[in-house]
């Protein structure tokens, strides 16, 4: 399976785009490890991406995100789904240990029923030190899946607290999952996660209090800056599938409402995050190169000794990055 450099074989990107799932999986590894090969593939695939609906599924640990994702996949794969069954890809992010870098990625436990369906592709990702409930390479991985022909991509975040809102910057639609009786009405009006919701789901709808929680959320989320209606609040029971067809329909309505437009706020926010991410990555990698290692080391020591403040040190290093980068911009 190794690609021989002298034979004119199709690249991983070409193979992934033509439906080779093994190539897609390997390409996702390259992208996740942020290798040169991964970046080259992303450059090649980028023009083919942008068609998929990226749906972020976020919420507290234990609110039922994985089960809900599995239920949404089942719904989209039903033979009698409106518009026919469509391919679905899932990115499930779990946290990395800040101590060892290791991780337990356990979201597949609830999604294994789709193992024999080649139009369902599930990939776990460790956050690898990235905050915000995602991994650094999550957007890039979604772009690869998008270019590989998955029109619906579900991105399940790390179980979040109140302020991990990064998913809203990269997803076309952000679904915030709540469990019944997780907090009083004041929780619903605090700043944070619920503010960025395009859809709010009260999951575990068969538990007592689900209706009351949904009513409270509707009352508290309406009337704010986002208009008098607030985001729709739906009730699901992911374990039985109740309410899931309605949730998928509500997700699909977002496309009809223009949420996926190239000029829309969500797509511009994602593009901005991608450009800023690439820029920060470029600068970081340049600072790691031998050419600048001495300057960086000297700056760090000077700041540690409080001879130079961190802002002046950063300005000087940015100047070095820019002056040494100019001459190489040509041979990309």
């Amino acid at each position: 399976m190794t690609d021989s450099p002298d034979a004119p074989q199709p690249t991983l990107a070409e193979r992934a785009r033509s439906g080779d799932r093994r190539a897609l999986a390997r390409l996702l590894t390259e992208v996740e490890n942020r290798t040169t090969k991964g970046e080259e593939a992303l450059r090649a695939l980028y023009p083919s991406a942008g068609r998929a609906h990226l749906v972020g599924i976020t919420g507290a640990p234990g609110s039922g995100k994985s089960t809900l994702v599995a239920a949404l996949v089942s719904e989209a794969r039903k033979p009698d789904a409106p518009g026919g069954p469509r391919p679905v890809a899932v990115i499930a992010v779990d946290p990395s240990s800040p101590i060892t870098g290791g991780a337990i990625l356990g979201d597949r436990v609830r999604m294994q029923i789709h193992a024999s369906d080649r139009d369902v592709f599930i990939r776990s990702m460790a956050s690898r030190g990235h905050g915000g409930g995602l991994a650094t390479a999550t957007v890039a991985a979604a772009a690869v899946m998008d270019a590989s022909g998955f029109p619906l991509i579900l991105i399940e975040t790390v179980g979040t607290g109140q302020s991990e809102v990064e998913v809203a910057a990269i997803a076309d639609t952000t679904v915030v999952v709540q469990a019944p009786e997780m907090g009083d009405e004041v929780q619903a009006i605090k700043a944070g996660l619920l503010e960025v919701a395009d859809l709010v789901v009260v999951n575990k709808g068969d538990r007592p209090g689900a209706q009351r929680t949904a009513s409270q959320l509707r009352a508290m989320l309406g009337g704010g800056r986002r208009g008098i209606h607030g985001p729709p609040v739906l009730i699901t029971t992911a374990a039985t599938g109740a309410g899931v067809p309605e949730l998928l329909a509500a997700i699909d309505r977002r496309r009809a409402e223009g949420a996926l437009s190239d000029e829309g706020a969500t797509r511009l926010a994602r593009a901005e995050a991608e450009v800023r991410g690439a820029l920060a990555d470029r600068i970081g990698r340049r600072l790691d190169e031998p050419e600048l290692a001495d300057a960086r080391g000297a700056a760090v020591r000077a700041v540690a000794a409080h001879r130079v403040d961190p802002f002046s040190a950063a300005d000087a290093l940015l100047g070095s990055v820019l002056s040494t980068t100019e001459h190489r911009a040509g041979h990309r």
Partner: protein
Amino acid sequence: MTDTLARPIKVLIAKPGLDGHDRGAKVLARGLRDEGFEVIYTGLRQTPEMIVSAALQEDVDVVGLSILSGAHMTLLPKITAGLRDQGLDDVLVTAGGIIPDADIPALEQAGVSRVFGPGTTIREVSDFIRDNVHRREE
């Protein structure tokens, strides 16, 4: 651009067959996490097809199979054959659980690199993985 970023080894820990005992698999998953591995855990009662599909989609370096049901001579060769059919010949396959010594040569013949018995330490498993994993050159 450099490719020298630390890259955790990805391990799939899977429970083929019908036994409902996954304490050992969970302890191992947790132990490997503490050793710095990225561990994908898929839960109980996995068919060979589910395990092969998860290994392919996750592009893992290692598949660790935990089995206590006695069906290892049927299930493990099915899994190694399935991995080969999907082009995953470079994935390291290990097994653990209750597997009689007499069965080990046949399992090794079928592509299981190492069978770990009861009493194996996490360190033995993680050392074996680090020493034997096939890292793809980039």
